[in-house]
């Protein structure tokens, strides 16, 4: 309780420096994210010449360096940035909404719904596509939306604010329920498909071009537009719904918005790259340890740091065992876990 409330007090007592602090933080984290996105495409399992990659005199169809740079690496880096930002922000919002530091984008059953959709599409061998979104991401989006609708319906009663306790319990229960269905689908699938479903659960940013990213980008943009309206209310909400209400926050509306925007960001991220773990919990806490608890700073800083972190992890994932790759979800946990513990011990 002391953490968030002291943050609120600090914000109230010193309203002036926030703008300055926000500017500095965003510049710092923005530079980090930009640096990650600029350096990552230069490094990979194959040495390439950057000058040749940008050499317009060689036809693109013959320029392998250019193809590796623009067709293989840039989409991955972009996918990493989008997914990292989406998962980290969703983590911040859900931790505030549920007033629970252990909440992650995967707590509410949305990713499990997405995973169930993906499992079904993989084991059915479905080959339908909607524009640039192929069958597996499409099915996983459908699963995520279904789970979101279910959790939302369970946690809301007409004329009453959303119950965050029910939200949390419904999410956790739905997670277990979907996990059982996932196991069932995997058990019924043949070997090759069962292995592919397991691989999907480890997360993968090799999305195969810009198309799939463009396909989910509208969802991410809507989610971020909603995120942008939240920080001040989240500061008060994380202290308590009653206190927030007395300070003029429309609690029901804020909670609805927080849930739906986090659900949307999570759905899009998981549909694109699978449930990449650890970002949604580690990045928000890391950022809080470095910047304090004010959501006006934490939310944008987490988005930027999440982007940089995932792009960096993917860089490790695709180079460390080259020419074989390591699933990025393993890297996020192996780097994020010890780093987080170190920060925790150092601060304590």
């Amino acid at each position, binding site marked *: 309780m002391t953490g968030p409330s002291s943050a609120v007090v600090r914000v109230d007592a010193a309203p002036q420096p926030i703008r300055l602090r926000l500017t500095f933080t965003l510049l710092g984290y923005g530079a980090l994210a930009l640096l990650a996105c600029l350096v990552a495409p230069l490094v990979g399992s194959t040495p390439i010449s950057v000058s040749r990659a940008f050499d317009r005199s060689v036809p693109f169809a013959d320029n392998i360096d250019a193809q590796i740079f623009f*067709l293989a690496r840039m989409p991955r880096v972009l996918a990493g940035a989008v997914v990292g930002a989406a998962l980290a922000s969703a983590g911040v919002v859900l931790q505030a909404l549920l007033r629970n530091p252990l909440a992650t984008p995967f707590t509410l059953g949305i990713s499990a719904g997405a995973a169930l959709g993906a499992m079904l599409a993989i084991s059915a061998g479905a080959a339908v596509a909607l524009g640039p979104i192929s069958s*597996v991401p499409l099915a996983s989006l459908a699963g995520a939306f279904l789970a979101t609708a279910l959790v939302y319906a369970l946690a809301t009663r007409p004329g009453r604010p959303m119950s965050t306790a029910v939200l949390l319990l419904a999410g956790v229960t739905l997670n277990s329920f979907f996990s059982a269905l996932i196991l069932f689908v995997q058990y019924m699938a043949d070997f090759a498909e069962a292995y592919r479903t397991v691989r999907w659960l480890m997360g993968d940013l090799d999305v*195969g071009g810009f198309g*799939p990213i463009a396909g989910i980008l509208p969802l991410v943009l809507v989610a971020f537009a909603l995120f942008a309206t939240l920080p001040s209310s989240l500061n008060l909400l994380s202290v308590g719904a009653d206190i927030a209400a007395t300070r003029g926050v429309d609690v029901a509306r804020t909670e609805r918005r927080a849930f739906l925007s986090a659900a949307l960001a999570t759905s899009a991220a998981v549909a694109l790259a699978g449930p990449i773990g650890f970002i949604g919990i580690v990045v928000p806490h890391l950022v809080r340890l470095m910047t304090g608890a004010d959501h006006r700073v934490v939310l944008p800083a987490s988005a930027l740091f999440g982007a940089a972190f995932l792009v960096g992890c993917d860089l490790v994932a695709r180079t460390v065992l080259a020419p074989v790759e390591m699933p990025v979800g393993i890297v996020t946990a192996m780097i994020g876990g010890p780093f987080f513990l170190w920060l925790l011990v150092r601060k304590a």
Partner: protein
Amino acid sequence: MAARAQGLILAVALAAGAAAGAQPAARIVSLVPALTEMLFAIGAGPQVAAVSNYDDFPPEVKTLPHVGALLDPDVERILALRPDLVITYKSQDALEAQLAGAGIKTFSYRHGNLDALFRTMHDLGAATGHPAGAAGKAEEIRQQLEAVRARVAGRGRPRVLLVFGREPQTLRQLYVSGGAGFLHEMLDIAGGTNVFGDVRRESVQPSQETLLARAPDVILEVRATRPVLGTEVGRERAVWSALPSVPAVRTGRIHFLNGDHLVVPGPRIGAVTEAFARAIHPEAFQ
């Protein structure tokens, strides 16, 4: 008293098992489809009493009882069939222990390369009383492989990407053959150079970047379960155009081979190797 009776039964069972071990198996349950095929190919078909849930070749197995598979063997039904030999996967320790308890011999199969395949066939012949049948079949397969090797000898050895798994309509979740295992060796006999031959694994999951860098001349997509047919061929072929510098993409040398026999390390590998060779060196078969 009861304990002594149990001990006596166990001793009798063990003696029966030992006695059975001395002579060829008469009632065989096979949980490994590749070995079921081998049993029929070497002349032990009539001794097969039951097969796994995944068995569908040769056609004779369709009327036999299906008694589970790698993860879910139906122990009770297997015991009820009173086999004297059960062909299991190496990893089915629990099942092997249970069968040993019932005095039933097991033949443990471990997946491997072509040498392992011939060794398995030889051992299977010895265990089922068909050593000559096994030797004859092995020789026939060797000759098929040699014929393919001779056919493509002296020709170039194009760099081949052998794909055996991919998410439909995209280049995601790609599984290709590395430089180990029977598919890699068959590709070698068929006159191709595996672009991932240096990776000593059976299966590799390459990224787009590695695909561009390895630049295969020919792409062979093996579809064991979901065949690519009709209009799908054009659609799935178009997916590869996302990698325009890959020679196979530029020359259109992308082939889809359908059928689950393509990935079974059994007696049909000679025909499969020839199918690989026909795709890689069509001119050699004109």
